[in-house]
């Protein structure tokens, strides 16, 4: 079974200059460096994760993404990655714009709130969904901007953002014919590779 990181690694070109927003302990960048010879930086705010990056020799910049990305110059990276962080950002639409200013392309991944299990919990249980992918209760969740695959498509269209490719995982971490056809129902996690409108 492919992990989410494997999909992202497939989407990144060799030798790319990468900015990884919300890079965690640097695992993805470390693997990208080994498998794709990328260079670049992670951006992180959590103290222990920053130490994790340093311990494995991954470049990490302490910075609050919600404070904006103005400091990163236009066209300064080949690709900007935002892995499972978009839903926790205060202004996700502005952020996607910024990512496509800084990078030629960007990769965004997020949990699909329209996944059937979420729908079931809301419909039958009448409560906010709690699952492996969305483990928090409503009152302590960092996920303040959850969206569905359909919502994200609409935003891309209205923002004139080009969807270069899209992968949707089911609960087993697979993309099947079914997830392709009914992605907004069967998709647990969505991966988008985005570019500027040509």
């Amino acid at each position, binding site marked *: 079974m492919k992990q989410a990181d494997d999909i992202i690694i497939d989407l990144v070109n060799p030798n790319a200059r990468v900015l990884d927003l919300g890079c965690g302990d640097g695992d993805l960048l470390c693997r990208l460096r080994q498998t794709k010879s990328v*260079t670049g*930086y992670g951006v992180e705010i959590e103290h222990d994760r920053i*130490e994790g990056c340093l311990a*494995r020799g991954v470049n*990490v*910049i*302490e*910075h609050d993404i919600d404070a904006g990305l103005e400091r*990163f110059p236009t066209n300064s990276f080949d690709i900007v990655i935002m892995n499972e962080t978009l839903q926790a950002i205060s202004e996700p639409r502005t952020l996607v714009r910024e990512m496509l200013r800084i990078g030629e392309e960007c990769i965004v991944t997020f949990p699909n709130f329209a996944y059937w299990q979420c729908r079931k919990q809301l419909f039958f249980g009448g409560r906010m969904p709690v699952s492996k992918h969305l483990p928090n209760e409503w009152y302590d969740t960092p996920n303040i901007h959850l969206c569905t695959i359909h919502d994200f498509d609409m935003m891309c269209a209205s923002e004139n953002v080009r969807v270069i490719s899209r992968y949707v995982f089911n609960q087993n971490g697979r993309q099947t014919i079914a997830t392709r056809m009914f992605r907004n129902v069967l998709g647990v996690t969505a991966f988008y590779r985005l570019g500027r409108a040509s």
Partner: protein
Amino acid sequence: MSEASSQQDQVASDSVGVVAPQCAEFDEPFTMENGATLPFFQLMYETYGRLNADRSNAVLICHALSGHHHAAGYHDADDRRTLGWWDNCIGPGKPIDTNDFYVVALNNMGGCHGSTGPTSNNPEINEPYGSDFPQVTVGDWVNSQARFADFLGIDSFAAIIGGSLGGMQAMQWAIDYPDRVRNALLIACAPNLSAQNIAFNEIARQAILKDRNFNEGRYLAAAAKPMDGLGTARMLGHVTYLSADGMDLKFGGDLKNDEASDYHDVVGEVTSYLQYNGEKFAGMFDANTYLLMTHALDKFDPARSFDNDLVSALKNATARFLVVSFSTDWRFAPERSLEIVDALISAGCDVSYADIESLSGHDSFLLEIPRYHRILTSYMKQIAESLVT
């Protein structure tokens, strides 16, 4: 058990223990950036830990304005006052781990702790240099440290580390000798001095220059030295190293509580604290060295030779960088560190950055702040691991 060995036992297991300074002598002339030449010079230094077989684990510690070669351990096991200035960071199991690294600390040229400086004999007139000692720059220090590295037989340093003015030397190293530094740690540093920084330095210098005993820098032979001026300079400097909140905490000065007695206590405490620090410093530092060091600080600006473009200045650097700032440092504020970080990113250099929450202002870089030390430890451990393979 003899008294000596019981004293020895009291030295903590994470201390490098009792150390003795050494002296490196250089007989070849040294030409400074301003064209002045020293016919020969010497540098005082100390080392901690062991140089490994392929001579790849050397770490250079660059000191700040008033520092020197005694960075770790004791000169006298019986006297805790002889503790090195960065002992909390250097030693077995400490962030700069002497089990992993061969750590070298020196007193810079122009200093007053045994390296050739204003208090040294000028062979031309057979008198101390005094104010005739040529104005050194950060670049001169780095060049003299490179000669020092040759003397030690070190081709490239695993890391060059410095806080404040020390960080500036580490940055200059990475620019001037890219092949000789693999990691540069710039702590509480700035890419150049702000007008405000320079203004504070100028007030400090005026305090020294206007001291009745300064005598145009020729005070060494006289009975009285410009102690008042140097002490005042230090008091001023010292305040810029602290933060407003940190000082309130230190002196229990909740000035919003306007009971007269509390207020006077604060006044008294601040006064005696500054007085004590100023006098203590003036008793062990040289006024001419203070002038040289502050001028070197004022002139530091590696971008200047690159059309004032810091990115161009850093383009040749191949070292990996760690930049660390402290939240309440207003002398070299976090924004100044971020200027360095942003330039390094634009120059395509490897860089990591952390901003440490601290109440202690610029002085934080000398303190044992848990997160700060964890950051240094993580970074240094990873360098140590890369040496093993």
